[in-house]
């Protein structure tokens, strides 16, 4: 559950933001970052629908690459291990 996903902010409405990660769009709460200056196009680390912290674009992109590798490996291996 502690897995965080970096997302980029597309639009902001109060404490709610539309965010995107690799083509997937989600509503994210900025409530925990209300004391930080946050603008559209910023990158944030998101966990269970809440932005935990700001991060740089470069850091976000390298995390996306890592998640891609983990998910690809996980799907493949779970399929192989967990099928009847």
């Amino acid at each position, binding site marked *: *559950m*502690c*897995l*965080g996903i970096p997302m980029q902010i597309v639009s902001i409405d109060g*404490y709610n933001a539309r965010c995107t990660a690799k083509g997937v769009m989600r*509503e994210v*709460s900025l*409530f*925990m*970052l*209300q*004391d*930080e200056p946050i603008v559209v196009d910023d990158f944030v*680390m998101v*966990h*269970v*629908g*809440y932005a*935990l*912290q700001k*991060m*740089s674009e470069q*850091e976000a992109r*390298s*995390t996306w690459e*890592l998640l891609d*590798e*983990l998910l690809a*490996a*996980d799907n493949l*291996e*779970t399929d*192989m*291990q*967990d099928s*009847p």
Partner: protein
Amino acid sequence: MSLTAQDWLSKIKSLPLTRSVRIMNVCGGHERSITMAGLRGALPQNVELIPGPGCPVCVCPEEDVYHAIQLALHAGVILVAFGDMLRVPVNAPKAEPRSLEQAKAAGADIRPVASPREAVRIAKENPQRQVVFFVAGFETTTAPVAAMLLEGIPDNLFLLLSCRLTWPAVAMLLESDKPGFDALIAPGHVATVMGPEEWTFVVERHAIPAAVAGFSPVSLLAATYSVLRQLLEDECFLDNCYPEVVRSGGNTTAQAQLRQAMHVSDANWRGIGTIPASGFALATCFEEHDARKKFPGFETEGRKRVGEMPPGCDCARVVLGKIYPNECKLFGTACTPRTPVGPCMVSDEGACRIWRASGVKSPTASY
């Protein structure tokens, strides 16, 4: 230029390490990256990476899961929970549902969610129903729940809270006769929220090297190198190998929200027992949303093995890093991701599930 995973491995291999070293991690995300990337097989044999208490679902009290099941079956509520909570087994009599998933199959209204915001949405969409959000999590999940409460929740939403702090379990191990590890890799996103300073006690009080790590092999290897070098040079400090999001002091807004919405209390850890000041309870101002107060008394008198792990299950020792998953006699035979016996085989953050899903059979073989 930044170092690659291969560079860090070379640096680790060049260290004049003559003894074996056990490095504990306390985060399911770390264990997942370590296992998926095959780091154990790549490191020198005398460097052991031990999965410790890093899975909130695994230590969620059996009584709480049972309570949630009974609420869903008998109180007419909509029970919402994070998905990996649904398959956690309890010690109910054979004829009764033994997990939320089985209770759902028996007709209970149980809905998996991925965010506290979904719990709020479901409560708003069902104003005539009572909705109970059963939530187990560490600080990374608890802080968003606090934010959810302070943003305002509908009157018909109640919380069955089984949230825990991460560091007290490590403190408990370090204060025991046999901690079982020589160095610590501290959890990256817990430190993002709470600040890395929470972990200085490991270094200052116990003289155990520690480094906060992120979830990439590079960050995990950098942290491994850091703690090994601290050991060799006999100079401990808390290193931060995840500066991308871990900043001095952490997210102070989130910490203030946590203090406003909750207070720290003694808490029971499944298979481990009570750890002082290791859990979160709702603050007085949110008492009317406390499912424990709204729906008390769902424990069945005389129920067998209350609070315990299932028979034959060694999850408690796996959680504490006393044994590796493959050392449990049920691992991969009676207990698999498809037919889990203990909580460590259920949760995506459980070491048993992570190892089994990756085909890991022993700590020395990467695959």
